[in-house]
């Protein structure tokens, strides 16, 4: 192991957080605001506005290289490799202050009440330890803290608190797709987006955030601070309250004391030296792949199969969202590069179970924009390149600015065969064993996607599309990493309790998407942050005792 520098005892914080993304940042702010001394270790660094591609003529090339969402493509020094050869979907993530909210389209729906009662209602998966209405105060708190654009009144959801800014405009292309849903008598609603459409945040200490100017590529960052990523929302607030954020610090394992309680973290600092940071309470927030990797790499006499893993369920029940893309080409120019790439409108007509469709649970249709000319040429969401040769320019101009896409996002159900394990050979640049992801699409998920692609096609044709293209499934769609440290009431059937506390290690919390019991069929970040804030309030009450 080499020499380890131990921090002096008086230097111990009240809480050590590993990971500075959506959930770790929310917990850091909540606890620092309550007077806790917080230290957070983050393997990435700040992504400065000036370093984001949006200012450059070659901005689209960065989507394919150093700002790609796949760490195996991006290969930055702070990234770790992921063996995903045995997975239908590629796990996507970003390692930085803000975590994966840096390359985030910021579509910000909430889970439906039924999503927390899947077992009771439909006899599959499991119920959550709490329901939507118990979680609702933390959904509301999170929205108030970061700023959400949208409008109330959606009949597919319970009423909710006022949104902080007006909806993001959907443009003429969004209106055209909405007309397809209207013709069919289907539901649609303008998306909630964690993107401010009007001034917000100054009074909270989020200095300098600008309202969205609809530049487009939220997936590459947001250098004007319109998007409510954790680096421009919770982190400035947490730092003002005294939280300490150490970047370029990569945690190798969580250490335990003689009683089997968490003692701290062994980590490589920016100088490459190995240190131990001790704390009476440890919070893990490394996403649904990084968190099980860290716990499985933390083996000890008390936990020979990995920390907090007496249930054997750390890493099991990996859920993505089964995803397919359907793209349409229209005759008229919509300038569909205008506006946030992932936030236009959604359709929840098929969200709930109807067994006559041939599957249990359901899906959302998420209407998204295409981007710049390179993305159009190489094939956009359906990865269907414009043909080379004599027809190239005709087809390119038929598509450019006239193309839009519908994502079919199905509910994934928890299965033990889908998992994150430790790869026996692969490691990151510090020699820390890398994750191995095994995932295969279930028959139910395949039926959801087939049915959903047909409905998306129907809607786009009703809207007047001249051509519809589909990619089913879409491999690079593993944005949502869920379920690998599931919560539950019983220590043998879950890793953490309903407040995100480890059943096995009372001073250890997991607060990221790992704790999800089921996946629902919508983007998870609002739910991840609400659960993290609720866990933080539990920590304030119990202090890990």
């Amino acid at each position, binding site marked *: 192991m080499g020499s380890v520098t131990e921090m002096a005892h008086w230097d111990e914080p009240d809480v050590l957080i590993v990971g500075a993304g959506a959930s770790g940042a929310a917990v850091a702010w909540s606890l620092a605001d309550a007077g806790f001394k917080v230290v957070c270790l983050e393997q990435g660094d700040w992504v400065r506005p*000036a370093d984001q591609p949006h200012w450059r003529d*070659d901005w689209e*090339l960065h989507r394919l290289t150093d700002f790609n969402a796949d760490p195996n493509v991006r290969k930055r020094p702070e990234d770790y490799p992921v063996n995903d050869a045995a997975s239908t979907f590629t796990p996507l993530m970003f390692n930085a202050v803000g975590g994966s909210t840096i390359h985030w389209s910021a579509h910000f729906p909430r889970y439906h009440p039924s999503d927390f009662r899947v077992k009771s209602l439909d006899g599959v998966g499991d119920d959550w330890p709490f*329901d939507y209405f118990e979680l609702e105060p933390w959904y509301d708190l999170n929205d108030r803290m970061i700023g959400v654009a949208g409008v109330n009144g959606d009949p*597919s959801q319970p009423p909710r608190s006022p949104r902080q800014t007006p909806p993001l405009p959907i443009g003429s292309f969004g209106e055209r797709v909405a007309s397809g849903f209207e013709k069919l008598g289907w539901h649609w609603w*303008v998306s909630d987006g964690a993107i401010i459409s009007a001034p917000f945040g100054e009074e909270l200490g989020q200095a300098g955030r600008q309202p969205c100017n609809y530049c487009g590529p939220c997936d590459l960052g947001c250098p004007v601070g319109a998007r409510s990523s954790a680096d421009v929302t919770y982190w400035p607030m947490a730092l003002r309250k005294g939280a300490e954020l150490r970047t370029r610090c990569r945690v190798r394992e969580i250490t335990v004391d003689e009683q089997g309680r968490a003692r701290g973290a062994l980590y490589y600092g920016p100088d490459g030296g190995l240190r131990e940071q001790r704390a009476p309470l440890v919070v893990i927030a490394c996403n649904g792949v990084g968190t099980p990797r860290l716990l499985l790499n933390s083996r000890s006499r008390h936990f020979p199969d990995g920390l907090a893993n007496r249930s054997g369920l750390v890493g099991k029940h990996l859920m993505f969202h089964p995803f397919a893309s359907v793209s349409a080409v229209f005759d008229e120019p919509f300038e569909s590069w205008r506006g946030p790439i992932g936030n236009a409108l959604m359709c929840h007509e098929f969200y709930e179970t109807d067994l006559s469709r041939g599957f249990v649970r359901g899906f959302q249709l998420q209407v998204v924009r295409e981007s710049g000319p390179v993305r159009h040429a190489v094939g956009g969401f359906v990865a269907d*390149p414009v043909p*080379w*040769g004599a027809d190239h*320019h005709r087809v390119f101009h038929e598509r450019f600015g006239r193309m839009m896409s519908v994502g079919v996002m199905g509910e994934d159900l928890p299965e033990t065969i889908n998992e994150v394990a430790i790869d026996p050979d692969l490691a990151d640049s510090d020699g820390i064993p890398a994750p191995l992801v095994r995932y295969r699409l279930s028959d139910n998920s395949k039926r959801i996607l087939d049915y959903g692609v047909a409905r998306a096609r129907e809607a786009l044709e009703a809207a007047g599309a001249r051509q519809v293209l589909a990619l089913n499934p879409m491999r690079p769609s593993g944005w949502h990493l869920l379920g690998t440290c599931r919560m539950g009431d019983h220590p043998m059937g879950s890793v953490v309790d309903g407040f995100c506390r480890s059943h096995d290690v009372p001073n250890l919390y997991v607060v990221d998407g790992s704790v999800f019991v089921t996946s629902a069929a919508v983007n998870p970040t609002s739910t991840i942050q609400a659960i993290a804030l609720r866990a933080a309030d539990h920590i304030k009450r119990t202090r890990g005792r």
Partner: protein
Amino acid sequence: MAILPGGGENGYDGSVMDQPSVDLAAGPQPAAAATPAPSGPPRRVLDADTRALLIAVLNRLVPPHDDLPGAGDLGVADAIERALAEDTALRRTFLDGLRAVEVEARGFLGSDGELQDEALRRVEAARPAFFAALVNHCYRGFYTHPRVLQHLEATAGYAARPPQPVGHPLPPWRDALLARQRERAPFWRRTSSAE
């Protein structure tokens, strides 16, 4: 196929690796000052014959259009060479693939356009990974070139500038769009605790 003097197994002598790369940390800059992708410092990893072959191939992939030259004559090979200089595996793929193009065409440069396209289609079928990479890198270079962006501005209304600082303004949201949806009774599924 000839390789650069002093080249290793892939015809690459390593001398261009010291060229400065683009400094992303330089900060927000007006579009005119930013480095367009297809220009920048030359990074030569192809010999003259291979380079001429690549240029001719690129002209078939994206041919001339309106006042735009084909991708080869536009200089897209420069961008591809920079990519090949940084990626050994990609360089090997390209060198092998371009050799196959030359063999299939029995002299690509001397063939007419139809025969060139037939040869390319045969290589596309036989070496799909190479060909997909070739087309992808051709499009990357072509559609980030200032002349192409200016053409798109004139023909499609796409502003020939980066996303920031101006953005792409949109008219504000119109709530009247939701009038029919608002008439619909709530249909979210009730759970016992919600009753």
